C-alpha cells in the first residue's frame, strides 16, 4: 500500500519505513516560525532552564501582529524579542522595517518554505506553506518553547483527504471562493486533524499566490496541514531565494485516502462567509445590498500583489461609496513596493483607500481598523468569529478581494461580476 504525502514525509522525518494514520512520531523540524508571540515563548523557554535554542539558524521570527507597536505593552514585547534574538544569535529576524510584513508572506518570499521540509509555527496559519509542498502546521506557545529547547515534537500521523479541482474559474470567481465553497461543504470540523491534498489540472494552473490562499484556509476546516505538489512554478519561485536544500516528496498513486472529493470550477460563483463562522457560506447574491461600514483588503490570505491588482482594476478611476472606510494592507513590504512601482497604490488611494503598513492589522483585533458596535465589515481575511476584529457586537463577512473591492465601491455587499 502506498503512502499519502503526510505519511511519506513523516515516515522519512522519523526514519521509519512506513507509518499509518494514528501513529505518533517524534520528529525534528527543518525550521520553526514565530511572530510577536515570540516574547511569550521566550519567557516560557527561559523558565525551562535551558540556555541556548537548539539550532538558532532554524528559528525564524517575524514581527507582524501589531507593527509598529501600538501600545507600550506591545513595544515591550518587541524589545524583549530583539534582545533575545541578539543574545541567541538568531539571524533570521524580521523587525519592524521595510523588509518585513505578515510572517507567512515573509517566510515564503524569503525562501524558507521549501518542498519536503517539516515546518512548525506558533501560528495556526502556518499551514499556508503547504502551497510549496511543505508539511507545515501550527502549534502553541509552550510547545514552541519546548521545540526551541529540545528540537523535537511529537506528531500524530494524520488521515488524508484528497481534493481534486478541475475546470476554469468563471469571471469574478477566485481561489478564495473555491476554498470558501470547500469549507462550507466540509464544515468547520470537516478536516479535523487531517492532511488535505489539493490536486488536479486547475491547481496546476493556479499561481503560487492562489495556492497560498487555498492552503492558508485549510485550518478553518480543522486540518493539520494542506499540500500542493511542487511543480515548475514552485521551482521557479524558489530558484533564486531558497534558503536550504530540498527535494520533492509526492504522495504515492496507490495511497489510501479517507475521502476523495472533486470540484469543478465552472460550477462556482462568488461567495461570502457570513457571521460568525467561516463555514457559514452563501452566494454573494444572497446577501447583496447589505450596507457595509468597512472593507479590508489584506492579511496572509489575500494581501498579495494579484489581490491588490484585482482591487485596483475594479476601483481604478472611481471613488468608493460615501461612508465606507476601505483599508488596504499589503501582506509584505515586498508586495507594497511592487504595488507602488506598478501604480496600484496610487490607484487605490485615489479611489479613497487608506493604506496601512504591512502586518496583520485589525484581522485579530489588534489595531488599524477596529470595528465599533453594530458595524459591518467585509474582509479578505480568513476568520469572521464573533469579536475577531475587536468588537463582539460587530459583524464580519469574508470574501475575495474582488467582492470586497466591489462592495467598497457600492457601499453594500456587491457581486463583483456587476462591476468587472
Amino acid at each position, binding site marked *: 500500500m502506498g503512502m499519502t504525502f503526510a505519511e511519506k514525509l513523516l515516515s522519512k522525518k522519523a526514519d521509519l519505513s512506513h507509518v499509518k494514520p494514528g501513529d505518533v512520531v517524534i520528529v525534528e523540524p527543518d525550521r520553526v516560525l514565530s511572530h510577536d508571540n515570540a516574547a511569550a515563548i521566550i519567557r516560557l523557554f527561559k*523558565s*525551562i532552564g535551558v540556555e541556548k535554542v537548539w539550532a538558532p539558524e532554524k528559528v525564524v521570527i517575524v514581527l507582524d501582529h501589531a507593527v509598529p507597536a501600538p501600545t507600550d505593552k506591545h513595544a515591550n514585547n518587541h524589545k524583549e524579542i530583539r534582545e533575545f534574538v541578539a543574545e541567541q544569535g538568531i539571524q533570521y529576524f524580521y523587525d519592524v522595517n521595510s523588509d518585513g510584513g505578515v510572517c507567512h508572506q515573509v517566510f515564503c518570499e524569503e525562501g524558507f518554505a521549501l518542498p519536503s521540509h517539516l515546518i512548525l509555527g506558533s501560528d495556526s496559519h502556518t499551514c499556508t506553506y503547504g502551497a510549496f509542498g511543505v508539511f507545515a502546521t501550527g502549534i502553541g*506557545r509552550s510547545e514552541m518553547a519546548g521545540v526551541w529547547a529540545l528540537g523535537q515534537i511529537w506528531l500524530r500521523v494524520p488521515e488524508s483527504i484528497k481534493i481534486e479541482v478541475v475546470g476554469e474559474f468563471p469571471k469574478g470567481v477566485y481561489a478564495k471562493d473555491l476554498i470558501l465553497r470547500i469549507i462550507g461543504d466540509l464544515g468547520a*470540523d470537516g478536516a*479535523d486533524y487531517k492532511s488535505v491534498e489539493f490536486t488536479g489540472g486547475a491547481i496546476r494552473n493556479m499561481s503560487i499566490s492562489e495556492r497560498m490562499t487555498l492552503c492558508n484556509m485549510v485550518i478553518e476546516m480543522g486540518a493539520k496541514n494542506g499540500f500542493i505538489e511542487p511543480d515548475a512554478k514552485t521551482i521557479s519561485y524558489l530558484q533564486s531565494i531558497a534558503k536550504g536544500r530540498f527535494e520533492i516528496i509526492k504522495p504515492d498513486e496507490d495511497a489510501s485516502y479517507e475521502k476523495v472529493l472533486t470540484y469543478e470550477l465552472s460550477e462556482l460563483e462568488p461567495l461570502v462567509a457570513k457571521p460568525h463562522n467561516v463555514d457559514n457560506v452563501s452566494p454573494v447574491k444572497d446577501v447583496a445590498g447589505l450596507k457595509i461600514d468597512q472593507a479590508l483588503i489584506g492579511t496572509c490570505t489575500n494581501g498579495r500583489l494579484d489581490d491588490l491588482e484585482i482591487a485596483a482594476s475594479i476601483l481604478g478611476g472611481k471613488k468608493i461609496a460615501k461612508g465606507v472606510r476601505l483599508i488596504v494592507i499589503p501582506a509584505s513590504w515586498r508586495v507594497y513596493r511592487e504595488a507602488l512601482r506598478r501604480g496600484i497604490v496610487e490607484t487605490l488611494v485615489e479611489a479613497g483607500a487608506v493604506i496601512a503598513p504591512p502586518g496583520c492589522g485589525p484581522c*485579530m*483585533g*489588534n489595531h488599524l481598523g477596529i470595528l465599533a458596535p453594530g458595524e459591518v465589515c467585509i474582509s479578505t481575511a480568513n476568520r469572521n468569529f464573533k469579536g475577531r476584529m475587536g468588537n463582539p457586537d460587530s459583524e464580519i463577512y469574508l470574501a475575495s478581494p474582488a467582492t470586497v473591492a466591489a462592495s467598497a465601491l457600492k457601499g453594500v455587499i456587491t457581486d463583483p461580476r456587476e462591476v468587472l
Partner: protein
Amino acid sequence: MIIKGRVWKYGDDINTDVIFPGKYTYTVLEPSEMAKHALEDLDPSFAKEARPGDIIVAGKNFGCGSSREQAATCLKALGIGAVVAKSFARIFYRNAINQGLLVIQCPELFEFVVNGEEIKIDVDKGEIHTLGGKVFRFSPLPEFVRRIIDDGGLIPHLRKRFKER
C-alpha cells in the same frame, strides 16, 4: 484523580476568539488576568461565576481557530476541572495538554447533562458519572500525555526532564 464540578454547557465550534479575544493577546499577560476574560465573547457570566473544579461540556470542534494558547491557559487559571467535548480542534487539544488542562473526548455525554448539574469524572477509570446515575466511558489518555498533565503542563514537565539530565 477525581474531578467534581458543575456543568457549563456550550454548543459546537466554540472558537478561540470567543474563549480568549485576540485583542488581549499582547496586553493581558498574567494567567490570573487571562482568567477574567475566559469565554468573554460567548458568555460574560462564565468568568465571574465559574468555580474551581467546574466542567465545560461542549459539542464538536471545541477550540477551533487560532493557535493562541491563552484559550487553554485562561480556563486552567480559572480552575476549570476539565473540558469534555464531542471533539476538539487539534491545536487547542495540544495546548490544553501543554497547560495541564484535562481534555476528554466523550461524544455521548452531551445529550445527557444539563447546565449547572454536578457531574463526577474518575480520570483513572475513564468514567463520567451524571447526577441521574448514568455512567459514560472515555478512552484513557496515552501515558506520555498523562505525564505532561500530571506534571502541571509541558513547561513544568520539561523543567523536570532537564533537571534530571
